[in-house]
């Protein structure tokens, strides 16, 4: 083998090519395999600059997949309710991390095509979640669900302002990462 390796230039090129093919295959398999296809009804579609996908260029989630990323819960008052409410959902940072899009910004689009830009919104420092439950009850379209972005306004008085209220989008359907 050593003789062959040493004597033949063609052999060396062959090995390099083999290595390249291996790397390529590994990369393809990782991207394709990391995210399962949604089993239930699709509640969230993530598109754009993400590393993991499960439907073409997009990553589709059903409620179960989102819940499997890990749930966070906090109580906060909002301008839209008279009393403070308990919201349950997944942190946006957790979702972005799971898609290999840590720290990136995005547009959020609602069921009725309402669209907000998260540019300049710090969802890491102020841990915003994509909630599916309010006060223990699952959200429906009629209760501004099935998904809804919410910030812990009560914990961080400095974000209890119009700019952060505007990005608390309800009836969330889609994220466009950029």
């Amino acid at each position, binding site marked *: 083998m050593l003789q062959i390796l040493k004597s033949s230039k063609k052999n060396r090129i062959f090995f390099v090519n083999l290595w390249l093919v291996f790397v390529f295959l590994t990369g393809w398999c990782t991207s394709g395999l990391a995210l399962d296809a949604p089993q239930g009804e699709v509640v969230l579609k993530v598109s754009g600059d993400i590393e993991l996908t499960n439907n073409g260029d997009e990553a589709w989630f059903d409620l179960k997949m989102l819940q499997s990323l890990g749930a966070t819960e906090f109580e906060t008052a909002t301008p839209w309710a008279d009393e403070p409410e308990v919201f349950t959902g997944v942190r946006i940072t957790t979702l972005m991390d799971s898609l290999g899009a840590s720290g990136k910004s995005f547009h959020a689009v609602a069921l*009725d095509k309402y669209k907000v830009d998260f540019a300049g919104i710090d969802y890491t420092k102020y841990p915003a979640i994509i909630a599916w439950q309010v006060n223990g009850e699952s959200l429906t379209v009629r209760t*501004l669900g099935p998904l809804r972005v919410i910030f812990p306004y009560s914990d961080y008085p400095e974000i209890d302002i119009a700019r952060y209220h505007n990005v608390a989008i309800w*009836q969330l359907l889609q994220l466009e990462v950029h």
Partner: protein
Amino acid sequence: MKYTSLIVCSIVAALLCVASILFLAKEISIASQRVQTVGSIRLVNFSFKTGRNYDELAHALIDYRDCRITPESLSPSTSNKKYIEKFDVIWSSFKVAYRNIYRHWSGTGYWLDESRATAAQELRDRGLAFVDKYEADMNPEGSVSCGRINEMLTDIYAQKDQLNEFAQSFFELDNRAAQEQQSGINKLFTTIIVLGLSFLMMAAIAISLVYKALKLASALLEKSQQAEQQANNALVDLRQSKDENTAQKRFFAAVSHDLRQPLHALGLYIGSLQRHVQTDEAAHILNCANLSAEAVTELIDSLLDLSRLDTGLTDTDQFRFSLGNLLRKLHARFLPVAAEKGLEFIVEADDSQVFTDEQLLDRMLQNLVANAIEYTGSGSVTLTGKRSGDEVLVTVTDTGLGIPAELHEAVFDEFYRVDGHSHNRDSGLGLGLSIVKRLGDLLKLSLTLESREREGTTITISLPAVENQPLSEDSIQTAPMQDTLENLNVLVIDDELEVRESTTLILQSRGCIVQAVESISAAKKLCESAGIADASGDAKFEPDVIVSDYRLARGENGLNAINVVRTLFEKNIPALLITGDTTINFKTDTEFKTDTEFKTPEGLAGFEVLYKPVDASQLLQQIIQMAGRSAV
């Protein structure tokens, strides 16, 4: 330097002002934009969003309806689910979100005024009515008839139209409000700009004013300094000229004094000689000598009068007196002179009284009458004194040569005489009229001269008239005089031998006992020895009158001498001071007062003064007066 910094400060202030105005303007502009947009965007957004949601519901319903007609194109259940979802979005808009939005607006104090709130409420009510009406049809398991779908579509389009209408009305309302705000802000903006500009203008004006004021002030300062300098120069000039004038007068006085000294002696010698003359011829010659001496004395007197008038040493002693008396005295005095020349001398006077210095007026009239007699070859000299209205006019009229009109002013100058008469034997130096003029000025009397050549001259003195009043006895000089000087002790102090001797001779000729000394120490010695002599039984010498020259040798003066003698005898001995120095006025100059302050039990002692040259009769008369007074 000061106003440079002032200007810099003003500029900085102005720049600051401009900067703050710009900043304010920018802030207002931003605020106005925000006010303009923030209100309408929310409602218009809501309207558009809801309108779009209605559209989507409509599409979903049409899809569903079409699916029922052609079931193969899409599964009915999917279509059903889709329109239910769209309906749910609208439902949530009105049932949940709208309530929240409304609350949010009012809660944050946005622009929802009454009319807008009403409109928004109406919008919501219609939306709620829509969702309530069709809620029952949104059953995932059920189906909706074609007719029901068409009905729903009609309602949806109606809703959409209404939404648009509302959106538009909100937009208009909002726009109007925004416009009002905008116009208000514009006004504010304009005001600020105007204010800023006016402030800048004011600042500029203030700066220029300050600058001008400072410039003016410095110019004024410069001018005042110049003026001060000029005044100083003028003052220096004046002082110099005054000094020159004074020096001239002092010189004049000194000359007069030196001339008087020998004349004084001459007069006294001639006076004493008269008793020793035996022959008529000698008596005639002596008489002539005496006349000449008197003429010279008269001239020197005139000169001294002038000098005294110029040096301001002449005092005026004004009182009320009868003019007639004065004129009659003059008549008595000059009648012989006039008669000698073959002239008539007429005096006419009423009973007017005048208030002035009698002696000085007398001097004026003496000069005028003497002058008139001198310049009149034939005819008469008339002296009148009459009241005329508010004035008393004293005129001296002659029938002489007259004075040409062009010379009327000049005759009052010193040493001026009308041409052609310089050969006249008795003509003086031409001092008479200038003395008259000066005395007139001193007494504030006006002098007028009328004259025609070869016809005569009239000189008028006008005095202010006074009411006639009875005159006191004092003014009539009837002081008793001790005509005899027998055994009167007289102490003569003079440093010049000639004067001592002549004075002694004169006084002895009248029976005086005279002791003459040359100095204070000699006087002292004499008086002391007199005291000792008295003790030893000899005839004592205690002076009844002291006659002293003012200027003695070795810096001593007559006043000190008088003082010393008076002190020795502790008695207020009458004293006569004789001096040739006309610049000294012993009665008013305070420096001499201290010298004479010898206090006797009767009070402060006085003394009499005679100016040289003093002739024998003058001296004797004065001494008689003094002795008489002391005797009283």
